[in-house]
């Protein structure tokens, strides 16, 4: 029966990537390669204050002492950093004052991606920061949000407009010494989003950043810094796509979240970078460091990720639970197809008393892909009454893919309760036939079954995006079953 299942699978996983187009945008790029001068050029391009250049140079020096990590269950071809362009920006004729002045080609690009940059026409209740290659081209609803004290702007703008906040928090959650890719990002990052929610403010709309790689031979290195002050709340979403290209492109981002007393941050990602073709050619290397700190008591940080894209994903959105009673959550669906590889999971570091964390990871593997969950739950000695529950499920479609689970537990407080559950299952031919018999064709049946499997995680996404994510899961599996 395995063979008939394989033929089913072969049919459903093999569809085309919807966002693979290239926009004809006039782009300013710097020379290929990486050295201290390049770091200085990037900083100069952004007209940065001295503290930023210092931060970058320290990071660069440190990065030079490091070696690319090899502990992940990934086969990463050697990356030639001298062959990558580290800065690419769409040329803008003049400073933008109103929407009417935005480069029509840029606007068309984001329209095509379903991300309108026009506030009136936009999905109700979502503010967008649009980042293309190395720069942010537009942030919507900035003024509306400013009225209630929320700062939502590109990182470059924050460096100029709110240098004190940037200086105070940059690198405090993910220091440049954290790891190889975080050090690289700290040296060369070019833009990203910045957000500050003041005390007692509940952000009235979803904030989101949309990342798009367009230029060839470039890497994208963006940085997001999000601070939720006491008693505040924000829900944040990021999405990402890239053109289809034969060469691999590097995306190494850093996201830092800071949640103060009683604050809550909900951070959702729908990652749909170009995954490469059916034979594993091309695709984005997605090497990302995401971490949040619940700095004060009763803070809460919740990560939700739907990872369907990228040739290689290396990503562990984590929570440092420092404040007493703080809560960390990680909900993940990672889908790999064809020759994609993913090594993803989380770290929950319990420092404060009565801190709680919850991990729900759903891996879906198809084709010849490899999908690993890697997670650390660490309870420090002072974390009296800490609790963790982890659930890691793997779903295999076919017999040529792999699913792996690497849970690490380090518990130094005897009062802690840490639970780990794991399951591995195969999508059942009987389930598919049951759907067929009710009039649902195999491709749709697989979409239905996979979405059902991932439902616990998808339920965590904001409504508008949950629907998108569901479609994405089905599309990403097209051709894998049939």
């Amino acid at each position, binding site marked *: *029966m395995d063979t*008939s299942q394989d033929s089913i699978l072969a049919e459903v996983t093999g569809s085309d990537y919807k966002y693979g187009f290239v926009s004809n945008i006039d782009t300013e790029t710097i020379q290929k390669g990486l050295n201290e001068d390049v770091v200085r050029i990037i900083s100069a391009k952004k007209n940065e204050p001295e503290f930023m250049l210092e931060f970058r140079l320290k990071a660069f020096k440190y990065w030079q002492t490091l070696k690319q990590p090899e502990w992940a269950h990934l086969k990463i071809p050697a990356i030639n950093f001298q062959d990558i362009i580290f800065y690419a920006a769409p040329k803008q004729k003049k400073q933008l004052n109103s929407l009417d002045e935005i480069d029509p080609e840029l606007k068309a690009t984001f329209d095509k991606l379903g991300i309108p940059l026009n506030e009136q026409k936009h999905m109700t209740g979502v503010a967008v920061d649009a980042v293309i290659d190395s720069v942010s081209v537009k942030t919507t609803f900035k003024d509306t949000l400013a009225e209630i004290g929320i700062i939502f702007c590109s990182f470059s703008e924050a460096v100029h407009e709110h240098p004190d906040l940037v200086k105070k928090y940059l690198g405090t959650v993910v220091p440049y010494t954290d790891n190889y890719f975080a050090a690289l990002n700290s040296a060369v990052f070019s833009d990203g989003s910045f957000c500050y929610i003041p005390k007692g403010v509940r952000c009235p709309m979803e904030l989101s950043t949309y990342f798009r790689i367009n230029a060839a031979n470039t890497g994208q290195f963006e940085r997001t810094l999000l601070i939720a002050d006491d008693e505040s709340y924000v829900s944040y979403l990021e999405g990402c796509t890239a053109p289809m290209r034969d060469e691999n492109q590097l995306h190494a981002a850093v996201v830092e979240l800071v949640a103060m007393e009683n604050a809550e941050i909900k951070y959702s990602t729908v990652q749909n970078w170009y995954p490469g073709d059916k034979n594993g050619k091309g695709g984005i290397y997605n090497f990302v460091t995401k971490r949040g700190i619940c700095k004060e008591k009763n803070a809460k940080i919740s990560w939700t990720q739907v990872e369907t894209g990228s040739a290689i994903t290396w990503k562990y959105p984590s929570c440092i639970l420092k404040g007493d009673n703080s809560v960390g959550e990680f909900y993940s669906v990672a889908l790999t197809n064809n020759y994609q590889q993913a090594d993803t999971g989380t770290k929950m570091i319990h420092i404060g008393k009565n801190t709680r964390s919850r991990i729900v990871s759903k891996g879906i593997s198809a084709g010849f892909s490899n999908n690993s969950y890697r997670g650390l739950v660490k309870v420090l000695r002072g974390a009296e009454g800490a609790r963790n529950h982890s659930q890691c499920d793997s779903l295999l479609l076919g017999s040529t893919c792999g699913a792996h689970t690497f849970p690490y537990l380090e518990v130094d407080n005897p009062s802690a309760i840490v639970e780990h559950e794991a399951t591995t299952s195969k999508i*059942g031919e*009987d*389930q598919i*036939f*049951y*759907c*067929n*018999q*009710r*009039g*649902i*064709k*195999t491709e*749709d049946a697989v979409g*239905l*079954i996979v*979405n*059902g*499997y*991932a*439902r*616990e995680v998808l339920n965590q996404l904001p409504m508008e995006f949950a629907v998108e994510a569901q479609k994405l899961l089905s599309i990403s599996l097209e051709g894998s079953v049939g």
Partner: protein
Amino acid sequence: MLQIKNLKAAINGKEILKGINLNVNAGEVHAIMGPNGSGKSTLAGVLAGREYIEVNHGSVFFNGKDILDMAPEDRSREGLFLGFQYPVEIPGVSMVNFIRTALNEHRKYKNLPPLSASDFLKTMREKQELVEITAKMTNRSVNEGFSGGEKKKNEIFQMAMLEPKLSILDETDSGLDIDALKIVANGVNKLRRPDNATIVITHYQRLLDYIVPDFVHVLYNGQIVKSAGKELALELEEKGYDWIKKEIAV
């Protein structure tokens, strides 16, 4: 409605069905009985389009169309329904979402627009009452954590929703207590119309006390060896399948 002619089918090269002939007309209820291993479920599987069963000979016409080359989902959309002996669980997929998807596929096949949310819910409530299942059940994931009885009731509920022309109920009575059996049988009887037909596959006569067949066929060793009216079921109950085996041996 259904014409099966000299149907031969095998699983992994082993012939299970050895020349089945059967005609079912609109408005009729046929019971197919037989000992374990006689080929009852294989017959149901062939009709529904199970891929692992190889059809080696014969033809099956349903509403004038040869269905053997038709995909299982198209057979369903043509109006062929299989009530499963062991309905599978599909975790995380709500019954509502599932049956709505199925129903809209059927409508699309007939060039009808999808049912509006309110019409769908109305239809669902009506059918729930008909087969005596609770709304709570339809809000759960497909068959997940259902008891044996609930699973079978859920099959009848889906049958009610999809309004098939031909329903094949494969051992629907297995694992049912007498109350659940009555509810299931009652549902089937209520759905019975002059323009549809039912094939009840069962090992025991018990179900046929509640769903009264027009014809009873005995399947033995891959062939229909005896066909008669409903009294045949009683005779079988009394004498056991050995009686048939002996009769054939003679």
